[in-house]
């Protein structure tokens, strides 16, 4: 509860400012009331809700950062620091071949992070995703390999259905029987490794617990094949054009209807930044990074990941179920009283988590060109949680975005990649990774503590 004087201030404002309320989206540009806003409002409200111009937007942004509501900023700054450090240590770090390698490496971490975000938003955790991914990858590999020989897309579908089922089982135990997700999914962590080993045991073609994936298969090509350079550019132009059209038209339409929107300049800025980002990525990927033969183009896994993150974000922000996930994560009792079927939505979260784990398993197996029972499901879970949390998703539910998995996954991949490039041994790699993880979370927590201490 904010102190009383703030409330009084809000009151006074209300009585003097009634006319402004009738045209809310255009009110208060150079209004003295800006100074009258309560601190809580200034800090917790996203900049584009209150700002009416680009200048105000940045001012609001700066204020939030100073007050600890830093959003994704620390992680972006951290990532830049990491990149500079590795580039200084090893000049090949920023070479196009290494960067593409890094993106591809990040794919699995991003997907494990996205999987965890489904459940972290609900204030739950899923420890089993690593071995769910293992089971999923084995099922896919089995389905597309000779004895069964399904088309690749049916194989992937089959694997994802199996993963979804595992998630449904765990989710049902957790939500209907009220068991803690930590314990149920810990059981999953152990049990699904067993399931995976059993699949490998039964199939005699999985020699030494390894199922290889045919290099002709699209499953293999997901990570190992590239779009042609031209296709990459065309795709970029199309994507940016569609994105720009949708956001510009959307903003204009909301303005016209008198709904609250951020300033148009911010929308344009967002489009420009996205376009530059996309341009740089396609440019990097389209450099010839081959030694003997030509090797260029955007690996298919990049649009694959972007599509998944985009689709998930859309689902979370534009559908009822997505909104209920946030509501339940923040206040399950309020959600229940609002008539939301809390158990169903929570189960859905676990299903989506496991399906995403299956996609992570797909990316993982594609990169290896095989799936082995050596997959370290225990570590992969932790990288998933780390990616989500480093990216800015809260462990306590209700706060987070799919974009966080993208950022967090890239940070983790950058650390691994950079350390490997420097040639440090595994012991040092583990320790350094730990330091980076802890540092990222500490920074975030310190900044936030400063915010709450005020």
């Amino acid at each position: 509860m904010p102190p009383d004087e703030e409330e009084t201030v809000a009151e006074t404002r209300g009585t003097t400012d009634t006319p402004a309320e009738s045209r809310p989206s255009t009110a208060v540009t150079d209004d003295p009331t800006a100074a009258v806003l309560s601190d809580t409002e200034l800090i917790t409200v996203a900049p584009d809700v209150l700002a009416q111009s680009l200048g105000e937007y940045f001012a609001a942004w700066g204020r939030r950062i100073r007050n600890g509501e830093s959003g994704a900023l620390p992680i972006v700054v951290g990532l830049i620091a990491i990149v500079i450090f590795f580039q200084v240590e090893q000049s090949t770090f920023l070479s196009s071949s290494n960067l593409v390698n890094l993106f591809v490496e990040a794919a699995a971490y991003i997907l494990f992070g996205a999987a965890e975000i489904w459940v972290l938003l609900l204030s739950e955790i899923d420890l089993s995703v690593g071995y769910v991914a293992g089971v999923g990858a084995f099922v896919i590999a089995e389905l597309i390999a000779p004895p069964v020989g399904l088309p690749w897309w049916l194989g992937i579908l089959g694997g994802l259905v199996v993963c979804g089922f595992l998630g449904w089982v765990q989710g049902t135990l957790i939500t209907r029987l009220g068991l803690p997700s930590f314990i149920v999914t810990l059981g999953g962590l152990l049990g699904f490794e067993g399931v995976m080993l059993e699949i490998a045991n039964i199939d005699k073609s999985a020699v030494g617990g390894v199922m290889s994936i045919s290099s002709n298969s699209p499953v293999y090509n997901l990570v190992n094949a590239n779009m042609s350079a031209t296709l990459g550019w065309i795709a970029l132009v199309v994507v940016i054009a569609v994105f720009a059209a949708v956001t510009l038209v959307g903003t204009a339409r909301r303005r016209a209807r008198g709904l609250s929107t951020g300033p148009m300049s911010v929308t344009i800025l967002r489009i420009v930044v996205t376009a530059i980002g996309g341009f740089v990525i396609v440019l990097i990927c389209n450099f010839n990074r081959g030694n003997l033969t030509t090797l260029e183009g955007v690996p298919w896994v990049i649009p694959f990941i972007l599509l998944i993150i985009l689709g998930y974000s859309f689902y979370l922000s534009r559908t009822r179920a997505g909104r209920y996930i946030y509501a339940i994560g923040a206040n399950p009792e309020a959600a229940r009283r609002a008539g939301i079927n809390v158990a169903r939505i929570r189960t859905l979260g676990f299903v989506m988590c496991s399906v995403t784990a299956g996609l992570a398993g797909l990316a993982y197996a594609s990169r290896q060109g095989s799936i082995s029972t050596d997959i370290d499901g225990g570590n992969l879970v932790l990288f998933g949680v780390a990616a989500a949390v480093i990216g800015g998703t809260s462990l306590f539910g209700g706060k987070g975005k799919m974009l966080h998995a993208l950022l967090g996954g890239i940070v983790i991949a950058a650390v691994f990649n950079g350390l490997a490039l420097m040639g440090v041994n595994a012991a040092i790699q583990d320790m350094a990774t730990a330091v980076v993880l802890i540092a990222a979370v500490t920074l975030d927590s310190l900044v936030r503590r400063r915010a709450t201490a005020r």
Partner: protein
Amino acid sequence: MSTSEPPPSHGSSASSSPHGAGALLELRKVTKTFGPVRALTDVDLSITPGGVTALIGDNGAGKSSLIKTVSGLWAPDGGEILWEGKPVHLHGPRDAEALGITTIYQDLALCDNLDIVQNMFLGHEPLRSHLLDEATMETTARATLKELSVTTVRSIRQPVASLSGGQRQSVAVAKAVMSQAQLVIMDEPTAALGVAQTTMVLELIKTLSSRGVAVMLISHNLNDVFEVADRIAVLYLGRLVVSAPASEFDRQSAVEYMTTGAAGRQSPAQSAA
């Protein structure tokens, strides 16, 4: 829900007579027991459309039990609940809500991470081709808040976490109004609020009442009660000892009823007997 009738339309044939016919909600000899403990004993109470009834009583007098019974959380062990003259059996909060009874608990049941619009529509979001219809939600929410003269919020797209206590209460009330509630039960709405915020909430209660919405106000604060209530009902050890127009009480008698179950001096007629 076991009413044979469809939910009655808003503001139906209702006179303002305090008892019997015309009552929006009527409790007859409602009793609730927990083993040997009698939480409510033969409670008679009637609430008229647009009336503000204050339910007061000491701790443990049965105020919470009564709200829980009316809002459908607890089924009464004896007695009858009548809604617009017809007996109803409430088997859960949804039944009560379907009738038009909304309860705003002290903790408000808002999600801090969602914005005002999202909270107001939580669980009832309108859809357009399977997607959330944000435009309709925002327009409706803005209109409702305006009707209730809630003008202190800076943007209806700000998260509820950034609102003051009174503003949060306003959002909870607006949510009730939007669901076409005819009876809004408010549990200690001003308990955690400062002076200015309390005024704001009391104004809100008056606005509700002027729109024909009945309000049942549970409060410890007699200032608030005397400011907004038309009728005052006093619970004492699970019994409704008196229910009379607020004008027939003074602070002294109200306190005596709350603490002893009877008034020492001559005071309102024991109309609840």
